[in-house]
Every structure is written in structure tokens, then in C-alpha cells.
């Protein structure tokens, strides 16, 4: 009994001796700053002075049409990005999973992953150039007669197309993640399931609905949750491509927080917005964490 206790105690000491550096770093980098943001969200603060305002920032926030605008635009940006990632990623994964030449398959997969290697900043820059009035997108559209070459569209300069253009770039850059994950998921489905189904005379469409999709459900749920979180907090694409403009038409929460904090130096107000964002992400994360924890047990 005593020996068992001693042994157990020894394990704990050993575990902590290995664990403490990483935990210390992460607590310092995450928990302390989080506490600081919570505190700051109750103050009016620039770099010089801090004045306690209670819930003032939050009340101002909920009455600020700009906050709601950027909030809903973040939701739209996230929803469209994730949905298109899923559709494109799944289509390409299904194609790559067919009976192809192994060399061609490896090559095609490798080539299709390349956009995902680029920094969002670099990808954003390329798209700024392509979407400019003199850019190749207008060039291609006018050569097939979809737009008039003399009235080139300024995709990023128009309030009705700015957010959509940023979404398009984001879809292009991040779909490979879905493709790779879903391909791995497809390869894990036992072949016998399909053999049995085709003996029973099931069509390809039936097999897709009744075997492929149910078998992929767990992977799809995980990556949709993850991608929603990552896209909801994304800063680089919008900041680089439009800076939230024109007239806030592509503003998302991350850029709004940045501009409030680092341009207008309203750190308290920016912190309150960051807290709202944190709470939204926290709720979505809770689902993800529960899944990940179950998988880890």
C-alpha cells in the first residue's frame, strides 16, 4: 500500500518535471493575456491612461451598427468559405480516390496542395493583382464576353463584390486541407462495404449516400468545426486584400478589433469586441474539444 503510494507519487513528480516548461510557457502566453483582456474590456484605455467604465464598452458595442456589420460579415465569410471548402475538397478527394495510376495520383495530390503552402499574405497579394481592374480575371471574363472590357470591374473596390472576392481567395488557398483529410478518410473505408453493395446492385449514387458519406461523417464534423473556428478568427486575407473596405463592406471581427486597437488606440473597446469573439469561438470549440477528448481517451 505504502509502496504503491510512493510509486504513484514518484510518477507524478516525474510527470511534472517533464511537463512544467511547456505549461509555464503556455500559461504565460495564454492565461495571463486572457485575464488582461478581460480586465481591459472594463476600462477605457489608450496607452497613457486607463479609466474604469464598467460595462460601458459592452453597451457601446451592442449599440454599434459597425460591430454588428462586421459580426455578420464574419459569419457569412465563414459559412461560405467552409461550405465551399467542403464541396470542393470532397469532390477532389473522391476523384483522387478512384482507380488512378499511382504516379498520377501522387502528382495530382501534390500539385493540388500547393496553394495551401503559401502564406495567406502572399496568396492575398496574388489575388489583389488578379482582381485589379487591369487584372487577369477581368481579362478572362471579357475574353469570353461575360463583361465589357471597357467597364472593367474593380472587384475589391466595389462594396458588393469585396467580401465575395476575399472569400474566393480563401477558398482557393485552404481547400487542400479538406481534400487531404477527406482523402485519408476515404482510404480508410473498408473495400468490402462497396463490394457487398455492388453485388446487391446498388448504384454509385446509392453507394455514395449510404456508405461513403456515413463513413466520412466523423472526419467531416471534425474538419468543419476546425475550419469554422480558423476562418471565424482569420485576419490576414481581409487585412491584406481590402483592409476591411471599401466602407467596411468586407470588415470582419478580427480586422475590426485590430483597427480599433492599433489605429484608433481604443484598447478597451477592442478588448470588449475580442471578448465577444472569444465567447463565440469558445462555444464552437467546446463541441470540438469534446470530440477530440473522446478520441483521445
Amino acid at each position: 500500500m505504502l509502496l504503491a503510494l510512493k510509486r504513484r507519487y514518484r510518477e507524478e513528480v516525474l510527470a511534472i518535471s517533464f511537463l512544467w516548461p511547456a505549461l509555464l510557457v503556455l500559461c504565460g502566453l495564454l492565461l495571463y493575456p486572457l485575464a488582461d483582456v478581460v480586465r481591459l474590456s472594463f476600462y477605457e484605455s489608450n496607452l497613457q491612461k486607463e479609466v474604469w467604465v464598467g460595462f460601458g464598452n459592452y453597451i457601446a458595442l451592442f449599440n454599434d451598427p459597425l460591430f454588428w456589420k462586421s459580426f455578420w460579415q464574419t459569419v457569412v465569410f465563414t459559412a461560405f468559405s467552409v461550405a465551399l471548402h467542403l464541396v470542393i475538397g470532397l469532390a477532389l478527394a473522391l476523384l483522387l480516390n478512384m482507380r488512378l495510376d499511382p504516379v498520377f495520383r501522387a502528382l495530382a495530390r501534390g500539385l493540388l496542395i500547393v496553394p495551401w503552402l503559401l502564406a495567406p499574405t502572399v496568396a492575398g497579394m496574388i489575388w489583389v493583382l488578379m482582381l485589379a481592374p487591369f487584372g487577369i480575371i477581368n481579362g478572362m471574363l471579357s475574353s469570353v464576353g461575360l463583361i465589357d472590357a471597357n467597364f472593367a470591374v474593380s472587384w475589391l473596390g466595389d462594396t458588393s463584390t469585396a467580401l465575395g472576392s476575399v472569400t474566393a481567395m480563401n477558398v482557393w488557398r485552404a481547400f487542400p486541407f479538406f481534400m487531404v483529410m477527406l482523402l485519408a478518410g476515404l482510404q480508410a473505408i473498408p473495400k468490402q462495404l462497396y463490394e457487398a453493395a455492388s453485388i446487391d446492385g446498388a448504384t454509385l449514387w446509392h453507394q455514395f449516400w449510404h456508405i461513403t458519406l456515413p463513413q466520412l461523417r466523423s472526419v467531416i464534423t471534425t474538419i468543419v468545426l476546425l475550419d469554422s473556428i480558423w476562418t471565424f478568427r482569420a485576419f490576414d486575407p481581409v487585412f491584406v486584400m481590402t483592409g476591411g473596405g471599401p466602407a467596411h463592406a468586407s470588415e470582419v471581427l478580427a480586422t475590426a478589433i485590430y483597427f480599433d486597437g492599433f489605429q484608433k488606440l481604443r484598447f478597451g473597446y477592442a478588448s470588449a469586441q475580442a471578448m465577444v469573439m472569444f465567447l463565440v469561438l469558445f462555444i464552437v470549440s467546446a463541441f470540438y474539444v469534446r470530440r477530440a477528448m473522446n478520441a483521445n481517451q
Partner: protein
Amino acid sequence: MQTVLMGHLGLRRRERLINAVAYLCLIVAIVIVFIPLLWMLSVSFRPNIEVMRMPPTWLPEVFTLEGYAKIFSNPRYLLVFFNTALVSLLVTLISLFLGAMAAYALARFKFAGQRTVLMFLITTQMFPLVLLCIPYFRIFISLGLYDTRTSLVIVYLTFTLPFCVLMLRSYFLNIPRDIEEAAMVDGCSRLGAIFRTLVPISYPAFIGAGLYTFLLAWNEFLFAVVLIESWENRVLTMAIYSLMAEFVTDWNAMMAFSVLASLPLVMVFIFLQRYMVQGMTAGALTS
């Protein structure tokens, strides 16, 4: 008999047709996906006056290395490459070292609070990074570390370290502990056993986690914008952005810079694709 054979042949033909369609669709997809990349390359090799010409052409009329020359002749830009490589490398090494230690503790021992630590690590990957910018900015100013490369090495650990811990932990869990225990019976210390058995065996996980960490650090933008001010300490993503903000029309230099900034990652990817994809998938499925 003949009808059965005919039916079989028809099936084979149908299958071949479907396969041909698959090849065709994939080739079309690759072409579409590569349009932005080819456009980047094409613009990087043409003079600036040709960039704004309507209608745009795919191939430059005058082929020039002017854009690349502007990057290579400016020591400022070369310094930016050095800074990025230095920061990314340091972040990768620190993340792997601290991450491996924590992963070992989580994979090999049972202790109170293990579940909480695991949950904390998974949650940290979901954190809105823009939230952290505000306190980081204030903290690093008061520490006197604002506008230093050190500050970047520290804050990048926020998102690289949890990932490394989780990925290495799941790999360690699949390696039987008998191997280390045998080494310890043979007279190795625990650390000696870890370095002689566990670390060499799990090299794919180290490469995968290391490459993914390096990629994340190399491509990071938000913290760099918030924490770095002077040109001497800038990293790539930020330098490219300021190039756009400062000289709106210098497109060939910007695209040349983008090509050069992406090239190292693409080269590494070509040779170590297997490990990199492993890191990419492990980042999502930490089980």
C-alpha cells in the same frame, strides 16, 4: 453465355469511361488551381508597364529579371529572408524540444490533472489570436522587447507548442514502453533511454511536427504586424505587405518577392511531402 460476356464488357467499358472522366476532371482542377500561381510567375518576369496593359496577356512580351534583381540588390530584403528563417528555425527547435518533453509526460505517466492539461492544450488551438495581440503589444513594450525578433520567437510558441505536444504525444502512445524500459534495465538513465530509443524511433513525428511548425511560423503575419516596427526586424509576410502599401505599382518586384518567399516551402514540400501531409492531418486529428 455470350450475353453475360457482353454485359461484362459493357461494364468494363463504362468503368473505363468513368476513369477517363476522373482524369479529365483532375487535370482541369489542377489547371484552375494553378491560374493564380502561373499569373504570379508570369508577372514576376515582366516589366511593370506591361502589368497594367489591357487586355492582359499570359506570357510577358518582354522577358525580364528586373523584379528579382530589385529583391537581390536590396540588402534590406535579403535581411528579411534571414530574419524569417532565423525566427522560424528557433521556434521550430524550441517547440519540438519543449513539446517532446510535455508529450512524453502525457504519454507515459498517469497523474492528477492529466485530462485538464490535455483539454487545455486542445482549447489553446482554438484561441482567437487577435485577442492576444492587445496584451502582447502592451506586455512587450513594458518588457522592452517590442520590435525585437525575440518577441516573435516567444509569441509564435502560442500556436506551435500545443500542436507539437499533441502530435508527438499521439505518436509516443503507439510506441511500446518496453523498448525504453529494456534500455533502462540495461543501465541507461531515463533521459538516456529516451534519447537512445524513443526519439530515434519517432523521427517521422518529429519531422512532420517540425515541418508544419516551420510552415506556420514562416507564414505568420498578424503578430509580426503588431510587434515589429523597424525594417531590420521585419519578416517576409510583413515585408511583402509593406511593399504593397508603399509602392502600389511595383508589381513585378512584389510578385518576385512572393515567388521567392514561397519557394523554400514548395521545395521542402516536394522532397518531404509524406511527412508534411502527416503533420497537416495530425494538426486536425490529435487522436
